[in-house]
């Protein structure tokens, strides 16, 4: 089937099989920040934005994104760079595999709620699993970023 998706601001027309997953489609188009993790809608590694909302690309057909605007971390570098250094400063990432999905969902959180409490951060990021850390480093990183921003 023929689809047209705006990927990171660029209109792409493509032919896909009906069962092609969005994760495979964005990776085919060079967006390797989108990682294949659990494939059961649980881990958040494959997070992309569709029309500005975070969704799981492992659980969405590319056909469902037809006519929509899809963004990956490759298209959000500027917005991410403000706070990722604070997360790195905490040594929050170990293997780093969860990082792109985690950063994507943090961008979404901060767009919706620019000054979240720690509980609101935990609740919003509950769908992003990390098997190296205990999440405290990431939480400290976001908290330090917010404190710095609000100075």
């Amino acid at each position, binding site marked *: 089937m023929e689809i047209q998706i705006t990927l990171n601001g660029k209109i792409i027309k493509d032919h896909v099989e*009906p069962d092609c997953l969005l994760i495979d489609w964005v990776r085919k188009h060079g967006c390797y920040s989108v990682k294949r993790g659990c494939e059961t809608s*649980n881990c958040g590694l494959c997070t992309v934005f569709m029309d500005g909302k*975070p969704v799981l690309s492992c659980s969405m057909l590319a056909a469902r994104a037809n006519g929509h605007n899809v963004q990956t971390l490759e298209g959000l570098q500027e917005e991410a760079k403000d706070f990722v250094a604070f997360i790195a400063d905490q040594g929050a990432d170990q293997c780093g595999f969860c990082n792109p999905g985690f950063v994507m*969902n943090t961008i979404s959180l901060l767009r919706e709620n620019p000054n979240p409490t720690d509980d609101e951060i935990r609740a919003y990021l509950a*769908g992003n699993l990390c098997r190296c850390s205990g999440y405290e480093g990431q939480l400290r990183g976001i908290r330090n970023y917010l404190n710095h921003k609000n100075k």
Partner: protein
Amino acid sequence: MADKNVNNAIDLSDLGLDTITETETEFSIGAMVTLRQLELHEGLNTYTQNAIRQAVCDIVGVQFRNMATVGGSIFGRFGFSDVLTMFLTLDCDVELFQGGIVSLEQFSQMKPDNDILVRIIVKKTPGQFVYDSMRNTRTDFPVIACGVSCVNEEYRFSIGARPGKALLLRDEEHILKDGLTENNIRNMSKWVAAHTPTDSNLRGSAKYRTHLIDVFVQRNLIQLRGE
């Protein structure tokens, strides 16, 4: 994603069923409304005293709730469904493309068929609503889910994740007719626990679930009392 061959799939996503419409008497919730829309809808959460938000807020994560639809949850009548458990506490109908409008309680007992769920109709019948669930870890399926409401002075107890699909019970023996006293609440919770069939799975045993039902009905009734 599961490996399953689907010969014919019908995509409902461009049929305009992704909105919640509020009138003076009801909410009309399209089948393609996401769980996140339910979570953030001010009118629904004001009417249910945030019970709907409480029911969906621990379902996987925000990204999942931006995709999972209320129609998918209700039509599937899954045992683990927080959504079905919550909506059974409401004065609520569903509209089926072929079957017309039927009460959600009746629909929850119907056998699966090839009809299409179009929308869910929540009537603004005056009521109080409380929802809570027990999870082994946040974002996991519930071990037990418990919604309690008092709609038009009728108490309703919806128990999900038994692990069978949610079951709705009422105060058939008028245990609460003299109000929510400590004694009545204790007797009511024991009655609900005794009349709700439970089973075991990897998340918990039948005995544990029965005990949890007793605890959660008590807690929710106390909260319903305003404490």
